[in-house]
């Protein structure tokens, strides 16, 4: 099962949910891989504290101009939708940081003046945290397109019965890249106007991508009436409510998992995996039914 933990709003508790979920599944004897796809600010390692195992670089292809062959015709610059190539009268410039590595410029060049070379853009680290296999992608500072590093991190995930993908915040390409081929998505929200606003946006992405999803409310006030009302109206299941508690905040600040620092809250995550399992299997049954 591939489960993504995403949100619209940042700071709602994706990593808290993903890391505690991974450890809880492992405690129940499952094989688990945790993949930190928040490559612009990976922080799952702060809580899971994996022992490093390996590290591979991630690169993307960018064009290089051979000035001797370049006609300065501007075909490449006209083709590039991202303005990564500028053709001046006596030279052609490439802005690596704007290039989206589509390779189109190389194809349209009439004089074979462009070749593609790898441009380093990040790293994927693997490690082991107890029974949880960890993968973490990190985008280099100054790089603006994270999906290639996210793809590399996902590909580096070892086979496991549960792969937990910790998504970046937002609803743009990095989040889409993370959730796109998952079996189920947990959307973590908080009972604030921003939390609900961004939950709606994230839910819209899930529906557009035809992904099954449920909600985890973090820092839940008793009831969280507005979030609850919205979920009921849209028939979105709430799989867990994590209480708004100073003890949780303290554990978080010390880099500790809820299920390790606060044993009293273990049943909350046991219940989450039970409901998650039920949801995933219900969705599979229903989809099977539709197909039949």
């Amino acid at each position, binding site marked *: 099962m591939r489960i993504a933990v995403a949100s619209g709003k940042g700071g709602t508790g994706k990593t808290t949910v993903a890391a505690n979920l991974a450890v809880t599944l492992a405690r129940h004897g499952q094989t688990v891989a945790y993949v930190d796809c928040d490559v612009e600010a990976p922080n799952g390692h702060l809580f899971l504290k994996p022992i490093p195992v390996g590290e591979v670089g991630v690169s993307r292809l960018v064009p290089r101009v051979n*000035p001797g062959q370049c006609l300065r015709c501007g075909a490449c610059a006209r083709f590039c939708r991202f303005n990564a190539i500028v053709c001046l*009268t006596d030279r052609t410039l490439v802005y690596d940081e704007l290039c989206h590595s589509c390779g189109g410029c190389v194809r349209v060049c009439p004089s074979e003046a462009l070749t593609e070379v790898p441009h380093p853009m990040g790293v994927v680290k693997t490690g082991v945290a107890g029974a949880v296999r960890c993968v973490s992608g990190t985008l280099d500072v100054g790089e603006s397109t994270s999906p290639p590093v996210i793809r590399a991190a996902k590909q580096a995930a070892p086979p496991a019965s549960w792969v937990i993908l910790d998504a970046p915040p937002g609803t743009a390409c990095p989040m889409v890249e993370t959730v796109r081929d998952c079996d189920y998505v947990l959307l973590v929200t908080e009972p604030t106007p921003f939390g609900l606003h961004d939950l709606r946006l994230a839910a819209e992405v899930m529906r557009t991508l035809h992904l099954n999803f449920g909600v985890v409310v973090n820092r839940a006030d008793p009831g969280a009436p507005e979030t609850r009302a919205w979920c009921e109206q849209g028939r979105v299941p709430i799989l867990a409510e994590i209480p708004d508690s100073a003890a949780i905040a303290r554990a978080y600040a010390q880099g500790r998992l809820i299920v390790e620092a606060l044993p009293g809250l273990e049943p909350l995550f046991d219940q989450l995996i039970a409901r998650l399992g039920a949801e995933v299997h219900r969705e599979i049954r229903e989809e099977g039914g539709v197909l039949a």
Partner: protein
Amino acid sequence: MKLAVSTQGPEPGSPVDTHFGRARFFRVLDTETGQQTVLDNADGAGVVQGAGPRAVQRLCRLGVQAVLTGHVGPKARTALEAATIEAYAVEGGTAEEAVRVFMAGQLRAIVPAAGGGQLGHGPRISVRQCLHPLETRAGQSREPAGSGSA
């Protein structure tokens, strides 16, 4: 010499646009012939990224040697340097006033022209590299290619 002023409107009395790459218009003036043209930058102003270098490409191909504008971003700066186009800071006012102040020698250069040759004709010019000028490659022509688009 050919000057370009980034402006908010097409008229000579239009206010200067202090954003270089995303300026709505460029007023291009030939100081020798007095001939003036207006370049509509609507498509360039609206691009998601790379507005600055894109504007430099257009001005370079028109033979512009200096731009009067407000703020020049880092990518526009490297492109201006590579194109040996000078940039001068204008505080505000109209296009006409900017040209008058420039002709009186009272504008501050924000991108000096001298840098062009030092950037080199290397196969790669990125912002990062341009912060540390490269050697000019030996044996390469500095002559403009002349014929523009193929």
